């Protein structure tokens, strides 16, 4: 395998084998409802980190589900939350695909074309990826928050 792909693969899935859990294990460890996790997984709202031989999930994913349950505890019915989640998922999938495509074309390709060696290219790619992933997360989260506030303001005034 290309050293850049090996490095990126490692950056994409740094988990130790032991840190990945089956759905029942995740439910038990994170004290979450197994039927809820199963429903989220079937709907593609909880994505496995590894598929083979059985889907395995990371404990970190439980944190996002807890955030969702905070919304439920604050009064949002689960059915409404799932509906919003499905719509968000549907809207964001093509954006995610386009963003990865942009990464390949405007980050990966130039690195490959300018780095003096494959090892150097791999290191620069991983560095760029590790910088960009949390930045993208902050960007999207911040923008969604701004949209929420703007819409709420429009209704209040």
């Amino acid at each position: 395998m290309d050293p850049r792909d090996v490095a990126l693969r490692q950056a994409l899935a740094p988990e130790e084998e032991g840190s990945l859990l089956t759905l029942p294990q995740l439910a038990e460890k994170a004290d979450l409802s197994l039927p809820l996790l199963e429903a989220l997984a079937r709907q593609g709202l909880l994505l496995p980190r590894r598929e083979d031989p059985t889907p395995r999930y990371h404990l970190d994913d439980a944190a996002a589900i807890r955030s969702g349950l905070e919304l439920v505890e604050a009064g949002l019915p689960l059915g409404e939350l799932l509906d919003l989640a499905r719509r968000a998922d549907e809207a964001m999938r093509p954006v995610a695909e386009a963003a990865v495509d942009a990464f390949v074309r405007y980050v990966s390709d130039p690195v490959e074309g300018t780095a003096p060696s494959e090892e150097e290219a791999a290191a620069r790619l991983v560095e760029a990826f590790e910088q960009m992933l949390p930045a993208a997360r902050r960007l999207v989260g911040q923008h969604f928050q701004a949209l929420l506030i703007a819409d709420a303001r429009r209704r209040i005034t």
Partner: protein
Amino acid sequence: MRIVTRAIPALERPLDRAPDHVWMSPDISLWGWGEAVHFDPGTGPDRIQRIRSGLTDLHTSSEVDDDLGRPGTGLVAFISVTFATNSPGSVALVPRLVVGRAGDDWWMTTVDSSLEPPDPVESRPHPDRARYAGSSVPDVLWLEAVSAAIDEIHRGAYEKIVLARDYAVWSRHPFSPATVLGSLVERFPSCQIFRVADLVGASPEVLVRRRGTRLSSLVLAGSTGSHADAEVDRAAGNALLDSKKDRWEHELAVRSVREALDDLGVTYAAPEGPELLRLDNVQHLATPVTGDAGGHHVLDLVEALHPTAAVGGTPTEIALDAISRLEGMDRGRYAGPVGWADGRGDGDFAIALRCAELSGARARLFAGAGIVEGSLPEAELEETRIKLEAMMGALGAGSGRSR
């Protein structure tokens, strides 16, 4: 009591005269005002028979002067029965004034009075929307209950169960039953629209109808949406007809009706397989059942048929136990029989689905889903969410931006 029925000229817009009791169907419509008799049959498995006895006694002891002598004339009671035998709230009401219509024929029945239908009042849309207040059972627990039911079905404990949930809603203005009924008529013109003791709804399913010696029932179980594009619509209908899960669910519902009628000893006929029936933007698997009532009062038939697998499950008793164990709420009159009966034993009954219990500016809405092998909890949650949203829309000023 003195009960008088006379033919009358057509009455325009009866709903605008704010009737207290309503039954509207393509076959017959009845609108009632006031209460000459309010009968509470109490709880227990005999509550339907107590209503039947009460009605028969009332009919026997009354002086009935009925020019028409047809179904829905003379003594008429609006009836709503709780789903569970131990749940209070069943009721039979004899209005002081009833206006009836069947085709082009209209009539009016008065009880100990010479009342006239009130003048129409201007119908205004509800000035607020229906606002969510909460549910008896949190969604997550309901999802877990559905998951547990699927496990139990998989283990062979029972074949089908219907699990329901509710929304409590409120509004800044009291809900107007007449406005809600108007909205239901607009949205669900093919359904049976009812209002009995402020249980208001639109039901597609005919539990049973009796006209003299004839009985009929329409079993609906398994449904899909309708589509504007004829080809897409046809494909959805064919997919429904081919769906093993829906066919199985339908078969269980038909079987429960067959068993009830067999137990009663009446003769009937039903086609081998279901047909596709389009009603108000929904396509249903439907099986019409017709037969000879064999001298049974419509309430005898109701008692035998309730609860069908369409609202309980299969086998009935095991499913009912599972409902009371898993559902976590009292359904009240939701999923119970609702309709009318006259002094001769004719009547129409639907299952109270797609309905709301109104109480001033508050209401309780219900929706249920049939769970069989292969059901998914999240799909059932979504199905009930859509049903509840539709009912919320019928109650208030509709959707749009909320604040």
